């Protein structure tokens, strides 16, 4: 397997959405290709660091204010009738 072929499969590999045979081939490649090992590892860390980052958290006071405003608008809203 070439590195470019490995890269194409990287997303499915990290998401564990591939057949056992392809996965085996990729893992064999990882055993001897240090560059792909590093790219795979740091890509996984990239996903984890964003997932755990708590970027753009909604502060409680703003959250309460927004929810109250939405609920108030809902009470006065005109609603579309279902198609069926």
């Amino acid at each position, binding site marked *: 397997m070439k590195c470019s072929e490995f*890269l*194409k499969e*990287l*997303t*499915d*590999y*990290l*998401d*564990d*959405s591939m057949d056992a045979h392809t996965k085996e081939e990729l*893992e064999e490649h*990882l055993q001897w290709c240090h*560059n792909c090992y*590093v*790219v*795979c*590892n*740091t*890509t*996984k*860390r*990239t*996903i*984890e*660091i*964003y*997932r755990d*980052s*708590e*970027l*753009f*958290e*909604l502060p409680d006071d*703003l*959250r309460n204010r*927004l*929810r109250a*405003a*939405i*609920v108030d*608008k*809902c*009470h006065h*809203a*005109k*609603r*579309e*009738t*279902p*198609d069926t």
Partner: protein
Amino acid sequence: MEAIKPPVGDPANDETKLVDAARGGDVGAFEQLIRRYDRNVFRIAQHITQNREDAEDVVQDAFLKAYQNLGQFQGQSKFYTWLVRIAVNEALMRLRRRRPERMVSIDEDVKTEEDSMPREIADWSPNPEQLYKQAELKEILSKTIQGLPPSFRMVFVLRDVEGLSTEETAEALGLSVPAVKSRLLRARLQLRERLTKYFRKQRNGDTKQ
């Protein structure tokens, strides 16, 4: 290497009941749905608009629109996926209004194959969490993701930050599954490339950038 597991979402067992009640005009039930998803909608909106005031407006408009159009919600998809689709469209509308000079579209498929080829190949050590203070790290992550083309950013945020499945991401963005996968790969690799410049293994005598 262990695969990434998407975060487990809220249990959906009572969600159908809440949606049904809200559809019948029960604002209290709808409020429960707001509480369940407002943080997610705010994050998604802020990632797309890159502006806090716009994100606040998107949260309000998206939930109001969802409430008004619950009659159209068929229940074939999850309520959350349907809500995200509304929120993404509201956010894009605001982004276009703010930057009319730039066409911003979900369909935009930026040809950047070359940009996705790894150049920076170095492990991250010590951990970024040890290398930077929390606020500094947030700044780096925020700046880095903002540099992605919007169509890549949206796929990465929905799939990897919010934990939607590939199929749900495709549905929320109105894209095909192969298009989501292709953008996700490029988004992940581009973010990795840029973050490695900050986080690469520190050799003796190196100073962080």
